Each structure stands twice: as structure tokens, then as C-alpha cells.
């Protein structure tokens, strides 16, 4: 007997929960934006500029954080932050940009690199990094730009392939996912760096993937069940695709959890963002993107008439598909 995540022929009434879901999301969204406005994000040096040095203790021993802090403070870098980086034997030291030019910044790295292992036996240098404010400003700008362009490109694509209601519904869901991910970083204080932008763009791709699968089914059913009321039709479509939605989320989460626990500290932030994004994206494609179609007053006439002109026996009139012939 093969495993089943959900029983066949589920009849869960997702649409009944839509008002609750939308209210719930609205609260989360407001909270995310408020949190972001109040305490901003814990930007990494990618976006803030400054200096970071990663060190490691030999033989998996715990880094003596207080000692490291003491040494860094004694070197005159007051306000430097020292924290565990993913594992107990790994520590990340972040130092504000020091007065002077680029050479002054690398001199700081050089000093920490030499003096820290000298003061604390068993400590080795792993990674030193400094980023000037010019570059970090640009990275921030490019990151925001990338997310915006991706959302717009997607809007255009969906609009082109479906009706405008679908495009709008998908984009609202995307913005929802992006904002909640930002909120997630505002709450957890995880470092927000360049790789998180990559994670957000992947979440956009993934969440959209989910939404498009459901939308595709809705479109198909609109043509199949001419008499069914729209809310019921959306419900049927969601139930039909539920097994796939959960299955794909599960395999992706399997891979991501493996990365999170085994992939090392450097990508933990990235995978945490992805895991959160997959959960949120799955939720939003079921509870936000699809019910919104109803609110946008999606009507079947617009979608059916065209097809009937072409082919009165519309059973499977689908767009031309380059792969069908393979």
C-alpha cells in the first residue's frame, strides 16, 4: 500500500475559512511592517558596510565568547559584536567601519587575525571581510530592485497567460510572502544579507509555482463545470491539487531541513528564510491567492467565450504547448 498524505477526494471547505485567513494575514502583514519600521532588520555587512571576522576553535571546543569580546574590546573596537555562528566552535565578530580608507579597514582585519589567535590558543582565522558603504548601498538598492522587477515580470507573465484577476491575485500573494519573510527577519533578528535576497527571490518563484498550479486547475474547471458557482469551483480545484501542493512542499522542505541542519553556519540564514517562505508560500497560494479571485470578481464568461469560438467541443482546449509533441 502506498503512502497517502491526504485521503483521496477530500472536500475541505477552504473558501469558508477565507475571511479568517485574510484577516489573519492582514494582522501579520501589519505586524511585519510595524516591526520593520520600528526596529528595522539586523543587516549584515553586505547591506551595512563594515568589517566581519569569522574564527573557529580547534577540536570542536566552544569558543570562549567572553574572552574574545575582551580581546576585541582591548584592541579598541568598542561596540564590536561577538556571537556564536551556527555552532559552538564557530564565532563571528562584527566591527563597525573604522575611520579612514580601505587600508584602515583591512588593517583591522589583519590585527584581529593576528592578535586574537595569539591571545586565545586554539583559535584560528576562517574568514575576514570588509565592505565599503558605497558597495553596501548599491547592494541594498540592487536587491530591492531585483525583488521588484521579479514581481513585475511575474505579474506580466501571469496576466499574459491567464486573466488579469489571476495576475493580481498572484502578485498580492507574492507581496504577502515577501513582506512576511521580511517580518520573519525583523522578529528573529537573523542576519539579513545578500543571500537572503536570493532566498526571497526563490520564495517568489516557489510560491508562484504553487499558485500557478492551483490557478491552472481553476481555469480548467471553469471550462469543465459550466454551472458550478465560483466559490465551490475554487474549492474543488484546491482540493484536487491539495495532494500535490503538500507533496511538493514536503520534498522541498526535506531537502531544506537537511541543508539547515547539516549545511554549515554560512547558509543557515538562507535555509531558515527558505523554510519559512515555503510554509508561507504554500499557505498563501491556498488561502490568499485563490480566494482573492472571488474578491476580484472573476467571471467565467471572459474565459469561455473565446474558446467556444475556436472549438465548440471544448474539452481540453489548452494553449499550444511545445512539449506536448515530445
Amino acid at each position, binding site marked *: 500500500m502506498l*503512502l*497517502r*498524505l491526504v485521503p483521496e*477526494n477530500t472536500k475541505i471547505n477552504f473558501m469558508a475559512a477565507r475571511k479568517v485567513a485574510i484577516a489573519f494575514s492582514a494582522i501579520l502583514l501589519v505586524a511585519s511592517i510595524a516591526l520593520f519600521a520600528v526596529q528595522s532588520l539586523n543587516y549584515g555587512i553586505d547591506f551595512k558596510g563594515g568589517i566581519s571576522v569569522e574564527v*573557529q576553535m580547534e577540536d570542536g571546543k566552544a569558543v570562549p565568547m567572553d574572552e574574545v569580546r575582551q580581546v576585541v574590546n582591548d584592541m579598541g573596537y568598542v561596540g564590536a559584536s561577538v556571537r556564536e555562528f551556527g555552532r559552538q566552535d564557530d564565532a563571528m565578530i562584527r566591527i563597525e567601519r573604522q575611520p579612514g*580608507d*580601505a*587600508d584602515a579597514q*583591512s588593517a583591522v*582585519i589583519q590585527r584581529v587575525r593576528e592578535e586574537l589567535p595569539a591571545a586565545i590558543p586554539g583559535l584560528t*582565522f*576562517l*574568514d*575576514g*571581510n570588509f*565592505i*565599503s558603504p*558605497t*558597495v553596501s548601498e548599491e*547592494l541594498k538598492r*540592487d536587491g530591492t530592485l*531585483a525583488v521588484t*522587477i521579479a514581481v513585475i515580470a*511575474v505579474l506580466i*507573465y501571469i496576466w499574459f497567460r491567464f486573466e488579469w484577476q489571476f495576475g493580481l491575485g498572484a502578485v498580492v500573494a507574492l507581496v504577502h510572502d515577501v513582506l512576511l519573510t521580511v517580518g520573519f527577519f525583523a522578529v528573529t533578528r537573523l542576519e539579513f544579507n*545578500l*543571500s537572503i535576497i*536570493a532566498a526571497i*527571490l*526563490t520564495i517568489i*518563484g*516557489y510560491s*508562484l*509555482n504553487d499558485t*500557478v498550479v492551483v490557478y*491552472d*486547475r481553476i481555469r*480548467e474547471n471553469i471550462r469543465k463545470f459550466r454551472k458550478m458557482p465560483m466559490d465551490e469551483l475554487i474549492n474543488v480545484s484546491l482540493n*484536487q*491539487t491539495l495532494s*500535490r501542493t503538500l*507533496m*511538493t512542499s*514536503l*520534498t*522541498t*522542505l*526535506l*531537502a*531544506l531541513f*537537511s*541543508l539547515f541542519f547539516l*549545511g*554549515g553556519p554560512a547558509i543557515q540564514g538562507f535555509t531558515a528564510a527558505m523554510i519559512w517562505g515555503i510554509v508561507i508560500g504554500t499557505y498563501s497560494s491556498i488561502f490568499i491567492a485563490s480566494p482573492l479571485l472571488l474578491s476580484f470578481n472573476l467571471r467565467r464568461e471572459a474565459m469561455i467565450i473565446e474558446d467556444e469560438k475556436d472549438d465548440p467541443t471544448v474539452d*481540453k482546449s*489548452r494553449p499550444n*504547448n*511545445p*512539449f*506536448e509533441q515530445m
Partner: protein
Amino acid sequence: MLTFPRWKVLMILAVCLFGVLTAAPNFLTEEQRAELPGFMPTKTLSLGLDLRGGVRLLYSADTDDVVKARLENLADQVRDIRNNNRAFRIRSIQTEGRSVLFTVEAEDQIEAARQELLPLTQNSVGATNALLGGGVQEVAMTREGGAFTLSLTDQGIEVQKRDAISRAMEVIRKRIDPDGTKEILLQVEGADRIVLEVPGASDPEEIKRIVGKTAKLTFHDVNTNVSPEDIARGRLGARERAVPFSDRPGQIVIKERVIVSGDDLTDAKAAYDQNGRPAVAFTFNTAGARRFGNHTRDNVGRPFAIVLDNSVISAPNIQVPILSGSGQITNIGTAAEAQELATLLKAGALPIPLSVLSERTVGPSLGQETIDAGKTASTVGLVGVIVFMLAYYGRFGLAANVALLTNLVLILGALSLFQATLTLPGIAGIVLTIGMAVDANVLIFERIREEQANGRKPFGAMEHGYGEAMSTIVDANITTFIAAAVLYMLGSGPVQGFAVTLAVGILTSMFTAVVMSRLILATWLKRAQPARLPI
């Protein structure tokens, strides 16, 4: 859809074989790769800095200097024309912004001057091909009465800047990796940024010191008749300047005019002088040798100054005319310094000043640890997904798993073939692809289940399952692809690595999950002829 003509089967197998061949070198040792026959691919994945350790520097090039220098040069050209022509008189040459301004007062001389100046505007730069041209006009001339303006065009400046950056990159390459064995990475980022990655390096200071040197070498005549008091008061002749010694206090007055410069060198290497002290031996090109020969012939007994980056290395007396075109720079500290100077001189002077914008040093242990962690994470994720698919879809899951593994081989092959750089985010991209690649199969299989539940026979269920799922799969993959493309265009370094693996993964997964799994399942279906699909 379930019948595959023989040629299609062969093509699918050929793609798989190609994938295996291109991925294979990654699993061989260097010796084994060397023994492969010539037609076999030998390229392996190139690992990013975060995986192999090393130094990454982001430089900003100050291209404004290029414009300034070119403008000075243009003014000099006008001065040359003025000095060499008696038919007209050019007055008050000055530079302003991006233009050289001057006047010709006598009206009857304007046309003659214009004719003489015209060739300056016919210089085209950035020609892609010497025969076909395709360059842009570099200088434009306008005139109001006798008031001439020669301006550098925007396109011309653009070309000059780009040219300066690529020359700077060439100089950096020759300085850091004179033997071409270090696999350094040099690329332009944006309009005026240069990225330099030196794998395996651990000392960024050393690299920055070598890259940062301008290494502008010039030979000058010396004015020995200026007293130290006059130097201190700045009482120098026209086109003369005081330059400090590199190794001792004090200054020496040199004539601005350059006899020969580092640009005239064809070779430089570390050597020892007759007293056994470190020196750099150099050879001039023909033009340089002639100029240097002429000068030393006319100035026997007088000193000349060897100036490097605005300080005098030495100012030897000319004993005999040096007509051979080769010589030695002495008074260099250590043998290592001589070696460094020789490398610098051979690489040439840096055409534009560079400043460091960001710096990253990755220790070698971090790189290895990251690779190991990436491998473990991928393996565990892969095994998890494989077990899950088997439990969920049985025989169909097996087909999906074969497709998934083929997909990984294809990704590895494609990345090796195109020499894409694998970074840590890139590994994350691959692991993510493992999770997402089965999505297409999940879509198809779920559809098959549904079709079967609706009463279709095995063949029809399969046929419809693949058919109906197709447009969804295409839509879903295109949207992810859009995200990857945006990421690639706007991302930098490691983020781009992630975008590449993600995009490649989407393409290969379309092939394996849709085409390959169908071939496997169709073949099985025809053999087994089951009454019901075990899904």
C-alpha cells in the same frame, strides 16, 4: 504520447550519456583525467572562493584620470601643430571640462588652421575590427569665428574608459599571476569595478600592495646646478621638478621631459650588478633604445635619474653611451624586491588609479568544511526525497528517482561544461533543485491518480496524466526561471552562482522529469500491460 520512435529514444539516451561524460571528470583524479583520450571532456567544476579559500578584492577604478590624461594629450597635439606650422598662429590654448579651447585671430589663417587640425578629429577608437572599422569618433571640432573648441565625445570617453579598465585588468593579471598558473579570476563589474579573486592566497595585504603600485617608471635628465636652498624655496626652472630619493632623505631636480619610460620596455628581470647586489636588468624596444642611445651619447659624464612612482631609485652618471638598448637598475634593496620590481615593470604601469571597495579572505579550512557540509546536506536531502517518492508512488516513484539522479548528473555536467563557478549558495541551489525537481513528477503522478480514479484505463490515464499536467509544469517552471534570471542579472558573485544552478536545474529537470520518466514508464507499461496502474 506514449510511443517513442527509435530516434527519440536514442536522442534521450544520447543526452544522458553526454551528461555522464561531462560530469565524469569531477569524479576522477588529476592523473586519471590526464590519461583520458582527447575527445573526452576533462573540465571539472570550478569552485568559488568560499569553497576553496583565497582572497577576493573589489576595486573601483578612477576613470576620471583617463579623461584628464587624454585631454592633456589632445592639448599637446594642438601645441605640436602650433609649433610646426608657420602658416597660422594658434593662441591661448587651454583645457576646460572635456574640451581644449584656443583661438586663431587672423581671419585669413582660420581655414588653413582648420585643415591642419582636421586630422585630430578623424581618429576613431574602439574599432572592433581593423578592416571593418566600427569605431566611434573620439574628438569633435566646433568653431565660432576664430574660437576653436576640440571636445572629447561621450562615446569616445566611454571607449577610453573601457579600454583603460581592460588594460588595468591585463596589468593586474601579469602582476599577480605572471606564469598564468594561479587560476585567478578577473572580471569587470558594472561600469568601473574590477573583481579580483586569488584562490589559495591568504595574505590580502601582499596582493593589494602589488596591485596598488602604479609602477610608472621614467628616465629623466637631471639639473645638478640647483642648490638645496633653492629646492627648499621651490626656485626651479621651467618644466623642472624636485623628486625625493627612494632610499635616503633629500631631493633631486629633474627635467619634466621623459627620455624613456616603462612603456618602452620589452623585458625586465631580476639580476645582480657587478658588485653582486640585487638589480633589475631591462631591455628597451627599438624606439626606446634609440632615444636612450641618443641621450646617453650626448650626455656622457652627466647623471640621469631613474624615477619610479615619483621617487628617484638612482641617478647614475653616464660613463659610456648605452646603445645596446639594455641596462640595469641598481640600488635595489633585496633580491625579493628586485624580483617584484621586475614583475611590475614587465606587467607595465597601471593606467588608472584603483581603490579597494571590499575585501574578503577565506581561510582554506573554511572552504573544505563548507564543501563537506554541502556534500552531507545534499546526500541526506537526496536520500530523504528518494525514500519518500518510493513510499508515495511505488514503481512510479522509482522512475521519478531515476529521473532525479539523472538530473543531478546533468546539472553537474552542464556546470562543468560551461565552467560555471560553484559557490556555497550554488550548492544550496542544487539541494533546492532536488526538492523541487520532483515537482513535475508529482504533478504528473497526481494527475494520473486522478484520471485513474475517474475510471480511465492505464494507458489513457498515463496519456492524460502527462498531457494535462504539461501546461501547468511549463507555467510553473517559467515563473521560477524568471526569478532565477532576475537574480542572475542583478545579483553579484555568489548570488549569481545560485541563480545559475537554479536555472540550469530547472531546464534539466524539465527534460528528466517529463521526457525521461515518460520513456521509462511507457516502456514498462508496454511490457507489463497491468490491469491497473500501481500508483
